[in-house]
């Protein structure tokens, strides 16, 4: 189960999307014509089957596909343009001015502010242990950790498990629905996009601050995270032949994996004897 607060590679990038502080992705591979990839099976389905065998692949994919691909590609292109000409240059400056440890501290503080969202969704998923960890982290990091800038809780083995309402819905069996590329927020799907709205509400309950301030903070958070993943994002972009598809696939696999972790977490405990979740999935470990 992932202590995701310091994920690498894709992850940094994808975590942004979950935070609703989206990375501006766009395609380096735009040279190629964005012909709708009708054959594309949803990577969610692929990830679930854990199916690597190339012969057995025939049985894979009851294609969920990407029915909105033409629109998604347009928005992706827009995000990429925004990233290349605005976000990336600013994050470069940010990176230049602020040493890594400061950027990590800023990220920690924003992670800490996500407490109401993490906590509520732990409860929604009946993971009382993680809800307790989450609460203890918030209390400890907000005080000893100086407004969350430091993360003494992790040192004590209380690791953060990022949660959001999209995961909660997935946990209760809601399928991802069609893939969606959101302007500014980045990759998502119908389920997770809806989750984002709910999470925004959860956050507002905890923090009565003016909307403008909240936008400003979200922007700073996004910029800071973008600067932390600058190199990785660049590598992944270069490592792709079709950046749009690469991001779509990574997002779907990543989300499916998080939801599987959530289901596994419940399996470890027995709060509600007799409650069966996750009938069709073999044990991970």
């Amino acid at each position, binding site marked *: 189960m992932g202590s995701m607060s310091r994920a690498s590679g894709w992850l940094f990038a994808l975590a942004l999307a979950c935070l609703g502080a989206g990375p501006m992705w766009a395609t380096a591979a735009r040279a190629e014509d964005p*012909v709708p990839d009708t054959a594309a099976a949803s990577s969610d389905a692929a990830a679930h089957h854990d199916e690597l065998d190339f012969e057995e692949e025939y049985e894979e994919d009851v294609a969920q596909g990407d029915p909105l691909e033409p629109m998604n590609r347009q928005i992706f292109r827009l995000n990429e343009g925004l990233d290349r000409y605005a976000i990336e240059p600013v994050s470069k400056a940010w990176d230049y001015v602020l040493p890594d440890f400061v950027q990590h501290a800023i990220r920690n503080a924003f992670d800490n502010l996500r407490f109401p969202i993490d906590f509520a969704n732990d409860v929604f998923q009946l993971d009382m242990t993680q809800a307790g960890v989450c609460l203890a982290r918030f209390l400890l990091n907000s005080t000893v950790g100086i407004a969350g800038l430091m993360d003494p809780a992790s040192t004590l083995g209380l690791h953060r498990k990022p949660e959001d309402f999209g995961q909660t819905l997935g946990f209760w069996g809601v399928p991802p629905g069609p893939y969606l590329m959101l302007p500014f927020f980045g990759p998502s799907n119908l389920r997770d996009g809806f989750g984002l709205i709910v999470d925004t509400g959860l956050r507002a309950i905890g923090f009565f601050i003016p909307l403008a301030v909240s936008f400003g903070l979200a922007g700073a958070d996004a910029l800071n995270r973008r600067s932390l993943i600058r190199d990785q994002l660049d590598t992944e972009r270069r*490592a792709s032949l079709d950046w749009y598809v690469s991001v779509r696939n990574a997002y779907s696999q990543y989300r499916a994996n998080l939801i599987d972790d959530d289901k596994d977490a419940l399996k470890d405990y027995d709060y509600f004897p007799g409650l069966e979740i996750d009938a069709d999935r073999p044990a991970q470990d």
Partner: protein
Amino acid sequence: MRILRSAPLLLALLAAPASGASDPSGATALIQKTVDEVIVILNDSALDTAGRRSRIEKIAWERFDFVTMSQLVVARYWREFSPEQKETFIREFKAFLARTYGERIDRYSEETVLVVGQAPAPRGDVKVMTEIVGGNYGGAEVEYRLRAEDGIWRVIDVKVEGISLVLNYRDQFRSILSRNGPQGLIDRLSDRNAEFAASP
């Protein structure tokens, strides 16, 4: 979570070539061995970047099964490849991965890697779970999938935070293959490799 660096595993590793049957603990031992070797190279201040890279590449060539990886990535289109195309594809795909991910070597920042466990996977494969500790990537989970051939374990897929490299490339290549066929994909890969070579 614990470091699997115990004496029994070391013994298993030494004895590995002798045992014909593919003992799953050999997979974990191989990953541990590879991780140890790579970290020694990364920390070797006597080496320059190019030296590090060529040594790590050499280890990767041995420990990764690029033939199986290519088959898994191409999946159902594999039978549309002629024998020559198969050979070319494997070569170009390998070069492509080496180019793009090899660039990361410079960004190493004193991470270490813990081998945290293993689990069986379909087809007799073994999944070995690791976690990066410290540095810029601390906390990231990396899972290797290994398959044994003639008693030798080799890596056939890598998952970073649940994202499989094989499945990601499969998705990317699928539409190119359906539109442009095997040669179209091979050409795209060789073009990219040539671009890399032109601008180091």
